[in-house]
């Protein structure tokens, strides 16, 4: 995950969407920065999952609850509707089993908040079409040889997936927050956050 992009400013996208005092499960929580911001901003009860021990250690240092597990493999242990929100922020594109993760998250959380970089972003299209290279943008900052991303999806891909699976899209926040991104999100948004419900 790119630390530069993952700045506190961008957490506002998520924090604004979450209700005060809610319970949250953060898949791929990293060092717990988002959970900390949520706890401070919205007094939430957060639990994280991350497979990296160093990240998990950082979460515990921040006094957060966390599981050092792989969220691709452990979600079946969680009960239905056991959290108000499941958050998959910047980690869906790194998942080996995104479909399973989305389905399970919708079962575990009353709502699911998903944030991912948009591969359909104009700059990405230009790089691929005119320069014939794998795109590198501020939300897709790594090169093909060092990116942790395994999935390259666009906003339209995701909306289509939700329609097909009868997943309700309750809300979409597009970044950057401009009029043109709202008009043509798949072309102009670098990053998107959806709120979903089954």
């Amino acid at each position, binding site marked *: 995950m790119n630390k530069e992009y993952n700045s506190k400013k961008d957490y506002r996208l998520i924090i604004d969407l979450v209700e005060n005092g809610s319970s949250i499960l953060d898949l791929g929580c990293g060092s717990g920065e988002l959970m900390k911001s949520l706890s401070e901003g919205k007094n939430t009860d957060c639990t994280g999952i991350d497979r990296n*021990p*160093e990240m*998990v*250690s950082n979460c*515990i*240092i*921040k*006094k*957060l*609850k*966390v*599981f*050092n*597990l792989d969220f691709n493999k*452990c979600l079946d*242990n*969680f*009960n239905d509707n*056991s959290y108000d929100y499941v958050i998959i922020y910047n980690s869906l594109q790194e998942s080996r089993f995104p479909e399973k993760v989305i389905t399970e998250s919708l079962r575990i959380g009353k709502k699911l908040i998903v944030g991912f970089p948009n591969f359909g972003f104009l700059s990405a299209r230009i790089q691929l079409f005119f320069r014939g290279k794998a795109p590198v943008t501020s939300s897709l900052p790594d090169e093909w040889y060092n990116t942790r991303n395994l999935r390259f999806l666009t906003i339209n891909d995701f909306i289509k997936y939700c329609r097909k699976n009868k997943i309700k899209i309750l809300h979409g926040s597009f970044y950057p927050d401009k009029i043109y991104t709202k008009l043509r999100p798949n072309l102009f948004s670098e990053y998107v956050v959806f709120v979903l419900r089954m």
Partner: protein
Amino acid sequence: MSISSAGIVKKRLFEFACNKNDMMILESGKKFGPITIAYETYGKLNQNKDNTILIQHTLTMDSHAAGIYENGGGSGWWDGLIGPDKAFDTEKYFIVCSNIFGGCSGSTGPSSIDPEKGHPYGTDFPFFSFSDVVKIQRVLIRSMGISKIFSVVGGSMGGMLALQWATDFPDEIGSVIPIASAWKQSPMQIALSEISRQSIINDLKWKGGDYYKSGKPDNGLALARMIGHITYMSDASMEKKFARNLKNGKFNFSFDADFEVENYLHYRGKAFVDRFDANSYLYISKALNYFDVSGDSLTNGLSGKDISFLVISFESDWLYPARQSEEMVRYMISKNIDVSYCKIESTYGHDAFLLEINEESKLIKNFLERVRNE
């Protein structure tokens, strides 16, 4: 930070079940008494009596978890974690560590004198379980006026005893930290401990456990310890520590120890027999094998209780592999129990819980603070 910042400590003895009518009834149904428990405390019990941390030791350790005795000797086995400003901060917490029932470092065990017969119990000592160990510890804790323990903590077998507390007395503890541990003894662990026991039992000097006059089964106990030590290390840690280094720089062409690693095991074995009783080893390792609080036995009593867990495992630990901790954590998740879990990256194997002090400190200190503030 200086070594032994817990300072000068003292081993104390607590005696109970001295009368015929207040004897302890063990899980096997046997009545037993009198019982002495050796223990040490570090830090001060606060006015509310709610700052107690109970430290559980491993199979072969004792109540000397921190500090040094007035007459010298080594510092405690978890000295790096216990003291002012350390993970178990003696400025904040009242820390208790007791030698378990059946042990041989001050608590009543098979090598203690049977007051009725005037000689050591030997194999007349009753078989016991971890439930018994915990029940007996509880008498000590209660005698100090403590009705709720802030945290029960332990590595390896100590972690199991901590989990036994959570199983048997969930209302009387606030948090549990099992480290490099498991919620049941696996077949591999049972098998390894049986080899250790057989090596003692097959020493002709064991004599059915009645060796206190005729001479101890040192060879068998040393062999058990050698087996144990292999399981505490990892392939990587042994490579790093010993490689193929030779003891005398050349092959002996004899059956004496050629390699450093052989020499180390012999040394460990010999050092052990001076401080440990073979019968205690047999009884405690048997109790270890009986231990199983897996599934609902642990979690049934926990639902709706205000009790938090921090489970820690180590990457290279093959004796109590992370898999076992994960199995327990995943089950706890399904029961909505407040649990955090971290698998520390370490090459030390099972011994990591005694060596990865810095990483453990960070986790434990912050977890305890979180629980304290909730």
